[in-house]
């Protein structure tokens, strides 16, 4: 029997690491992985709360988040491949053509 607060703290920790990953890394693919880590941390919180309240809706929502994440990864990686083709780089600092 583990208190739900432990799961929430773990989820918060993983979310924070994902957010820091998005902030400090320059490689677009690794930034993308940080986003996946944040989605995953949110899913963990959903499942923990679904278990606490004994309602399946939380788990169903995780199912939908997984679907959206799959679609997002397909589109995002396609965008990264396209950017790499035109710029020969996926360093986010070098992609600054729209800078005002």
């Amino acid at each position: 029997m583990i208190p739900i607060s432990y799961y929430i703290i773990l989820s918060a920790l993983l979310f924070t690491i994902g957010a820091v990953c998005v902030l400090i890394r320059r490689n677009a693919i690794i930034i993308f992985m940080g986003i996946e880590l944040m989605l995953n941390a949110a899913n963990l919180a959903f499942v923990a709360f679904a278990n606490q309240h004994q309602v399946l809706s939380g788990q169903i929502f995780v199912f939908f988040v997984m679907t959206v994440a799959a679609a997002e990864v397909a589109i995002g990686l396609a965008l990264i491949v396209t950017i790499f083709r035109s710029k020969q780089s996926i360093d986010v600092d070098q992609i600054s053509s729209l800078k005002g």
Partner: protein
Amino acid sequence: MSVDLIFFLALAIVAVGAALGLLFSRNAVYAALFLVLNFITVAVYYLLLNAPFLAMAQVTVYAGAIMVLFLFVIMLLGTKKLKTRGEHLWQRRLAIGLGVILFAEIAALFLAKGQNVLMVGDIGSKFGSPEGIGIELFTQYLLPFEITSILLLVGMIGAIVLTKDD
């Protein structure tokens, strides 16, 4: 300390360690493999939280399909060319500071609201099984389920159109 708690903490160390490995690894392939490890530990947490269907979906969809796609793109672009210059030191310090503030905020909000914390224990075996999820998904959540099929179709067409040579 109960067996459950020891198991939880050991897994938590692996999960957070893998996340930190993703954060600090220089090599994109290692980062992807650390993320796979993180996804698998979270799948084990789903099993502990009475969500066996989601645990299997996590392993097949996240650790399987999504990460294979990531590794495929890393290999396609070539790991040598993906080397980027080092981060600015001030950016790193600022990001870590912001991260600490974010974590403190979440923890403070939760501790302020969650005074009557219940224990997470064992529920019936039906809860979270493929059968239970299926019944819920095809009765109460049928319309959102159908909409996800359109979302996946649009995602597939988008990926093909974006990467098409022309």
